[in-house]
């Protein structure tokens, strides 16, 4: 197993205080990694830095051997929390756009997934529910043959039945050469698919280890441990 992502002493501040503070971690290829922490803990910032959308940070970030940039963008497939499409675009149009943008995009796979999620290719984004929009975005992102999938809260507005399909898609898509990093606060529903878990609290790295070793060490499920650590 080789290291796909290497982060050393990463710090990022927006004006006031640091959002990420001296974070160091490694992620291997062939893993499904849960990135968990409450809202505002720095998960999205971490993803944006890895995806190359934020470049004014301190520390070192290496994605497959190079810092986030043109090369890593071709290898990392990022699902942002919010959509960036115009409401007038149809599902089929969004698929064509991705096919134009990314050399590693598999149109056939996207169309199959569309069918699986019961989405109409001719449907406009603005007439879709929030859950449907999220599904479409996920289909686009997962239809790339990327080395690193960065899924920022892909389960937020999605009903439990579709959640199962999404987990199924992630598991089916699993390959030894790619890694999925998935941020969520719905740990209970997804913890069984994680190899590793990264936990962030107030910008500090709290946990970065294998999910089963955390269970062994604490005698708790990830969900229980999360509740324990972030108790108000």
């Amino acid at each position, binding site marked *: 197993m080789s290291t796909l992502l290497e982060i050393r002493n990463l710090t990022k501040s927006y004006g006031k205080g640091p959002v990420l503070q001296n974070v160091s971690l490694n992620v291997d290829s*062939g*893993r*499904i990694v849960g990135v968990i922490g409450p809202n505002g803990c720095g998960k999205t910032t971490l993803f944006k830095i890895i995806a190359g959308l934020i470049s004014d940070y301190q520390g070192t970030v290496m994605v497959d051997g190079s810092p986030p940039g043109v090369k890593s963008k071709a290898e990392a497939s990022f699902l942002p929390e919010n959509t960036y499409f115009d409401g007038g675009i149809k599902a089929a149009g969004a698929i064509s756009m991705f096919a134009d943008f990314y050399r590693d995009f598999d149109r056939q796979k996207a169309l199959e997934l569309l069918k699986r999620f019961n989405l109409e290719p001719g449907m406009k984004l603005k007439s879709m529910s929030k859950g449907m929009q999220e599904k479409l975005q996920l289909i686009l992102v997962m239809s790339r043959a990327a080395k690193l999938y960065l899924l920022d809260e892909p389960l937020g507005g999605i009903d439990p039945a579709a959640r*199962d399909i999404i*987990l*199924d898609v992630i*598991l*089916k898509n*699993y390959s030894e050469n790619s890694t999925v990093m998935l941020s969520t606060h719905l740990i*209970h529903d997804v*913890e*069984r*698919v*994680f*190899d590793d878990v990264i936990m962030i609290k107030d910008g500090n790295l709290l946990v970065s280890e294998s*999910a*089963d*070793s955390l*269970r*062994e060490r*604490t*005698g*708790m*499920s990830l*969900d*229980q441990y999360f509740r324990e650590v972030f108790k108000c």
Partner: protein
Amino acid sequence: MLINDKFDSGVPIYLQIMHLIRRKIASGEWPPGHRVPAVRELALKFGVNPNTMQRALSELEREGLLRSERTAGRFITENTELIDTARRGLAEQILDDFIEQMTGLGFTGQRITELVGRELENRTCSEQKEEEE
């Protein structure tokens, strides 16, 4: 160890899967000598990560309940003695739990034996009735 199919307890998931598979083998749902489905297929079926599934299967190989043949895949052992031992191990766990719970409710050993005996008798009776009908 109680196993929850949803894999949400504090027990490492690979151990939970090992337990579920051990049960399949002990009950004969996975018969001796049969081929074990591919890791990927099992991972999807159990809804867990392929690496976790791989680990569970490797550990079961170490226990001897599974064996792997270089090119043909993975098979369930034909060693019925090993399977018997696994079955007895599982039964002991269930009995331990049961006795602990019954004692917790205030039943003595003798009462527990009586209750189990009566319950088993009832079951045989109702099974016979069903057959007659």
